């Protein structure tokens, strides 16, 4: 792979340079949260040491610098996802808040009794619960695109589910529990053919491959900073300008208004209308640093690394006796959910932890996925740009140890 040197990449992540329980740390839980390169940590420290002040308010030098850094971060995000206009980038706390924002602004304005919200069976709770809540508030009905045993969406079922009552299609780009890459471009095409707007949950996508929101054509795209090597507490809602302009505010407060009297409030323009209160300034700065880090590596190179490692890990796990991979989508991201004999994932996780290996065990905030596959939980190893074949080999050795304990 030209230009992508995983050992050099590892050197950029200080947290990986440690031993736990007397063994080198093997971090295979990046789908939960990714580690941060030194460049991100430095950018946050630098902001607090040199530039910190509130934005869009002061006339002083620090406020100018902070505003420039914050609005500069917005432009960096725009470039990263190829939005047309930086005003289409709204800073939020994370994917969860982004989806709630759309549900409570677009949803409350446009969705009424008997209308339908269409989601899929492979969603994270963050793309289920906000819509469930909206349906309870408005009397709308939640509809679900089914999944098949590979973990792929049943595309044949889609057209019949996009009805004249469907007001929005909300779909994940990549399933956090199965790794399935959903055909969101095709789904968007079909929804738009019937005039239905589309929200894409991109939390597990932006970290693994290039995302171009104009190419996808979706109306809203949500993602989190912390899963893409940036800080927690910051995330992005992208919305097409013509979709955002007519929406009412999400929260009320400072910075989202143009004028306030006791009789009347005039709301600010997009995107500030949706950013009430002092935003996570250092978070935005850190997110921009993470994006610059990814851009320097090149998202195509990152995607190639992840896919190569996924193929290696899939084969390696299949060599473990009694192991069954859950989620065999033909187009898949670097997530491996699995079951080992009838050993409970929590026991697998505990034993791996003693080997210095971090994986996620449980329902992955995707209980409908677990229900479909009729398992209470799975073990999940998720791979990122700093993972190596040695990490995968350590996992396989760890799983043999689990088998030994339970033999």
């Amino acid at each position: 792979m030209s230009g992508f040197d995983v050992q050099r990449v590892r050197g950029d992540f200080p947290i990986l340079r440690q031993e736990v329980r007397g063994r080198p740390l093997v971090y295979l839980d990046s789908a939960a949260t990714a580690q941060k390169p030194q460049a991100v940590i430095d950018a946050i420290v630098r902001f607090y040491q040199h530039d910190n002040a509130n934005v869009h308010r002061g006339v002083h030098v620090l406020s100018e610098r902070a505003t420039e850094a914050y609005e500069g971060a917005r432009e960096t995000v725009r470039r990263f996802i190829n939005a047309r206009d930086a005003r289409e980038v709204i800073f939020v706390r994370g994917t969860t808040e982004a989806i709630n924002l759309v549900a409570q602004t677009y949803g409350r304005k446009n969705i009424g009794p008997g209308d339908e919200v269409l989601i899929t069976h492979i969603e994270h709770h963050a793309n289920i619960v906000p819509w469930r809540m909206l349906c309870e508030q408005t009397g709308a009905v939640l509809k679900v695109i089914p999944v098949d045993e590979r973990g792929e969406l049943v595309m044949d079922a889609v057209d019949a589910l996009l009805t004249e009552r469907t007001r929005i299609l909300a779909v994940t780009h990549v399933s956090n529990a199965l790794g399935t890459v959903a055909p969101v471009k095709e789904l968007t095409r079909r929804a738009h053919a019937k005039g239905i707007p589309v929200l894409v949950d991109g939390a597990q996508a932006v970290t693994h491959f290039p995302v171009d929101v104009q190419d996808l054509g979706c109306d809203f795209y949500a993602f989190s900073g912390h899963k893409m090597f940036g800080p927690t507490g910051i995330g992005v809602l992208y919305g097409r300008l013509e979709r955002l302009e007519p929406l009412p505010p999400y929260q009320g407060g400072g910075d989202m208004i143009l004028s306030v009297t006791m009789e009347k409030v005039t709301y600010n323009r997009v995107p500030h209308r949706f950013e009430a209160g002092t935003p996570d300034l250092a978070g935005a700065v850190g997110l921009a640093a993470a994006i610059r880090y990814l851009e320097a590596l090149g998202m195509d190179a990152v995607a190639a690394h992840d896919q190569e490692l996924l193929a290696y890990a899939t084969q390696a796990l299949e060599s473990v006796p009694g192991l069954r991979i859950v989620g065999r989508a033909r187009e898949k991201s670097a997530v491996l959910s699995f079951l080992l004999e009838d050993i409970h994932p929590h026991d697998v996780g505990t034993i791996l932890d003693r080997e210095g290996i971090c994986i996620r065990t449980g329902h992955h905030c995707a209980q409908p996925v677990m229900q479909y596959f009729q398992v209470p939980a799975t073990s999940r190893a998720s791979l990122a740009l700093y993972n190596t074949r040695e990490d995968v080999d350590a996992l396989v050795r760890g799983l043999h140890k689990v088998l030994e304990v339970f033999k």
Partner: protein
Amino acid sequence: MSSDLSDLYQEVVLEHSKRPRNYRVVEGHNREAAGHNPLCGDQLLLTLKVEGDVIRDVGFQGQGCAISKASASLMTGAVKDKTRAEAEALFEQVHKLVTEGPEGVDMDALGKLAVLSGVSEFPARVKCASLAWHTLRAALEGRGEAVSTE
């Protein structure tokens, strides 16, 4: 295997998790409670036959990790024919054992339950070991709602 792992997954624990005792709904039960650990999805249903102050029979069903299954299985054996107060006293000892370790715990009184001593080295697994006991307490108190570890 590292020593704390072999302390956690002792022979008796593994054996009880694979072949849990009293894995049934007690016939003619007059107390029951459901226990749930929402973080890991562990679920169990506990049924009891209580006469006066004494637990005459107790059974459980459900799904969970080796620790939660073994703990439930061991508990059903330990509290049979015990009074409520005796069962409660046992729970206190078990709770101390799985959170703080064996020091200051009357290990003789615990009998087989002593095999849970390794749990204290694994703070993330304390809930697995105590779910059955919290559920027992709810069943004895006659609370209808499901018990949650959260």
